[in-house]
């Protein structure tokens, strides 16, 4: 199940993470929310799953 999780601290700090994704679809699904909340690219961290699709393709070519 795909989930986008946003946590808000009392200091106003906002954290966003995506779960249940493999590949870059998470970026597309969270893009509108990040823009609406003003979360910049510099604050985004990607999990290993984010790169999974690309790794598989590279292996197929080898």
């Amino acid at each position: 199940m795909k989930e986008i999780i946003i946590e808000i601290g009392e200091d106003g700090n906002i954290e966003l993470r995506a779960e249940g994704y493999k590949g870059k679809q998470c970026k597309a699904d969270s893009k509108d929310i990040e823009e609406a909340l003003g979360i910049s690219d510099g604050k985004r961290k990607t999990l290993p799953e984010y790169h999974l699709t690309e790794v598989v393709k590279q292996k197929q070519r080898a």
Partner: protein
Amino acid sequence: MSHLVSAPLRIRSIPDLKRAAQALGGELEESAVFTSYQGERNKCNYRIKLPGVNYQVGIVRDGDVYLMQHDPFGGDGPQWGDNDGHKLVAKFGKGLSKLSEEYTAQVVTTQARKKIGWTVVRKRLKNGRLQLRMVHA
């Protein structure tokens, strides 16, 4: 004398801020001034009023975003006069943290409604943070 404090959150959606203010019992309206210490009037673009409270939250344009300002000065008892910024703090949180949380929740809910098959679930975590889970069915 001014005690104005700016909340760290940057506002990008006035409609979502309006819904957040309403959810906490306030009312957002267009206004060129908002009230603080001893009736001082400060420049703004919008303001948030609470029923029966003299002080108001000012929404001030800063480039392509808005800042929220308020004066937390005040207390109960005759020595405080009409200075009731503490009532803003009681309703909207220290540093407008509750209002900031609610605004963020409204933004996320608005964005979720634009997408098909997504719902938003709210949860208060043990560490005090508000968690919003956008779930795709």
